[in-house]
């Protein structure tokens, strides 16, 4: 997506940073009298400072993605408000990069709404029968004049109850092999055919949703990419990696910090063996942090490596091991819970609540966002060049596949 024409593997040319500096000056001038944050964000978008690597006119300046951190700092230095991406995670992280690549001119107007937080997005990808194997989605979309009618069930949708629009993968042709019959849409969540139900988790609460689509309507103008091109579009979504800003987590960030603090504050259940176990996890967490630092430095130097693909595997293992130790090392206090009541949390933290919650919630870390098994497969095949798994599902019409 970068429009820089230099082959030098660096973070961006001097011309690029100059372009950013100029845009920031112009935006600061334009926003001088604005008091409403959203209005300021609109100005930033209009000056190409939303995602600087996006094309001009789509919230960007067409410079290298590695300059996002530079731009973010420049806008901040100019005293301008910036939106918190965590308030529209799917919008920023998944919808925007996909729309920027595959969207029509009309669809690209949504980018401004995403950036200014005026339209919140959620994701309708996974289904009960399509977990790791996303291409197995069975939710049907059928053409109906200028519209499509969508029927099916989606799962693991966070924020569905508060979302305005969803990115949606559907099956439009069951007579061709499964990767070929998919189509990608941007569907309005606030309509009668869309029902959202909490999906209760082993923690007792409903952090995610099931979404039932029953003859829900999406206009053909909200189709992203061609009919039958849904798999390719979805891969743009899944491959969108948010550019990390800053130099990574601090030492003892995350679960290790919680457990180390607990250990320091109580001597009740200490033993040399548990201490050694804790220190083993401390080492793992610190080595992961160091690896992330190296990766960031490589990225900043324009030399990204494949090493990042292992980070999630290590993260989930360490989070699971630590939360397990945390529960075990506290005696009865490690067993206390707050409530098993089915609730819809407005926000949550993997390191929050209590040891039981953290232990149970961490079990999902090796599943959500790509199971450990899938990631190890990807590393083995894409990075190490080992043969792919034997597959029989690539050439059979979807409707004829055993499910």
């Amino acid at each position, binding site marked *: 997506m970068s429009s820089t024409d230099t082959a030098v593997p660096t973070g961006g040319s001097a011309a690029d940073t100059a372009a950013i500096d100029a845009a920031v000056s112009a935006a600061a001038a334009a926003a001088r009298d604005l008091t409403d944050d959203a209005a300021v964000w609109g100005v930033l978008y209009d000056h190409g400072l939303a995602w600087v690597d996006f094309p001009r006119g789509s919230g960007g300046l067409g410079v290298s993605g590695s300059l996002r951190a530079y731009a973010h700092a420049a806008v901040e230095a100019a005293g301008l408000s910036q939106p918190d991406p965590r308030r529209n995670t799917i919008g920023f992280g998944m919808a925007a990069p996909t729309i920027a690549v595959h969207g029509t001119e009309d669809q690209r107007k949504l980018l401004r709404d995403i950036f200014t937080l005026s339209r919140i997005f959620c994701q309708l990808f996974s289904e009960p029968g399509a*977990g790791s194997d996303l291409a197995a989605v069975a939710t049907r979309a059928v053409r109906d004049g200028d519209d499509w009618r969508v029927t099916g069930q989606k799962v693991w949708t966070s924020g569905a109850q508060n979302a305005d629009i969803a990115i949606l993968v559907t099956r439009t042709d069951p007579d061709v092999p499964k990767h070929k019959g998919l189509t990608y849409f941007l569907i309005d969540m606030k309509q009668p055919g869309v029902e959202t139900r909490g999906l209760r988790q*082993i923690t007792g609460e409903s952090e995610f949703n099931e979404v039932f689509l029953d003859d829900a309507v999406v206009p053909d103008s909200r189709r992203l990419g061609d009919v039958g091109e849904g798999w390719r579009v979805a891969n743009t979504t899944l491959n969108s990696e948010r550019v990390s800003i800053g130099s990574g987590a601090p030492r003892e960030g995350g679960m290790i910090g919680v457990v180390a603090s607990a250990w320091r504050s109580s001597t009740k259940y200490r033993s040399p063996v548990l201490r050694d176990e804790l220190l083993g996890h401390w080492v793992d967490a610190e080595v992961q942090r160091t690896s992330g630092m190296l990766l960031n430095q490589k990225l900043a130097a324009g030399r990204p490596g494949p090493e990042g693909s292992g980070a999630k595997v290590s993260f989930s293992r360490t989070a699971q091991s630590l939360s397990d130790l945390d529960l*075990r090392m506290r005696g*009865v206090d490690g*067993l206390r819970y707050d409530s098993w009541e*089915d609730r819809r949390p407005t926000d949550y933290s993997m390191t929050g609540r209590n040891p*039981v919650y953290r232990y149970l919630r961490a079990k999902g870390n090796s*599943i959500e966002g790509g199971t450990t*098994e899938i990631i190890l497969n990807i590393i083995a095949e894409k990075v190490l060049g080992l043969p792919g798994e034997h597959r029989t599902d690539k050439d059979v019409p979807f409707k004829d596949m055993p499910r």
Partner: protein
Amino acid sequence: MNDIDLLPTDIDEDLRTNVRALLAARASAQDVSRVYDEPGFDAPAVDAGLFDELELAGLVIPEADGGDGAGLSAAGTVASEIGRSAAPSLFLSSAVVASRVVFRAAAAERRTGADGPAHKLLRRLATDGTTAALAMDVTARKWSGSLHVTANTAGPSAADDPLEPGAAVELIGIVHGVADAHRADLLVVPARTVGGALVIAVADAADARVTVFPSLDETRRLSEVKLAGIRGQVIAVGDGAQRALERALIDTLAVLACEQSGIVDAAFDSGLEYVKERRQFGRTIGSYQAIKHRLADAWIAANQLRAAAVAAVRTVDASDAGEVSRADAAIAVRTASAYAKTHTSHIVEEILQFHGGNGMTWEFPIHLLLKRAKLDEVMLGGAEAQRDELGRLVDL
């Protein structure tokens, strides 16, 4: 050791069949889930079946005291079935833990020829539907003698020590994390006198303030138990009390290992079934070699745990019959327990992972097994604690 018979007896098999049928009918995943959703609900049909219909209250209590005299081996069979469904039952807390404490206390009486209060209590537990819970921190590795209950001689007596079995005492203190206290009739209370002597007393649970708190595994609820000077009766004193409790905790760990084995078997069976049906990328996930190898590993551990758990209960029974030493029994139990505490949660976690997102949902029963597995892991000390105790026994 080589001569312990590990094969199931016909009686074992009958017992297993009966308990399994009962729990299949009354402790389905839906039944068990209700316990989490309704803090006042304890699935009473389960224990009505186990205690009233199958009459298992006296399973480990000698025939002379009104029980079945079936020994710990039979209790292990029942516990493994309870583990399979993570059933909410007082069986472990009352018919094993509390009953074995009283049994061991009664055995001390027997040695002195007395048919004292422990024997009488044992008969009540075996025959009249009375249930009991041990007022001890469920995660405590041992009764260290530094517990939180003080026993005073009741009434205006000057001398606190020595107390005799049968003596009336006043019990004062708080114990955190007592299992199943909220629905037991009696509390079996390890305590020390002001003078420092150790006693085991029994008291009416209704006299205590028992406050359930939400915890990891609601099928075995935990409470704070507050004893505000309530009346109790001493059933064992001094070294006898200490030894009775020590041995009863060994007994408990043996039966717990059987429960853990049942948890593993149920998780494994459901996992195997799931991977044979669930398809991803056009294949059952059970056809993927990484999954196959991990299931094969789980199968190996499940088999070994089953053997070790049976060896534990059988060796305790053999020790009670004078066929092997107490040390041999303790070694078999600590070994099985350390192994169970190392592998049970791990295997359930593996099976949960194979379930993918489904494993994280309330709907799939695997989470009930996970919670029981983790509670069992920390009960009476974790794997490390068991290995430490084992080390003392085998001179390592």
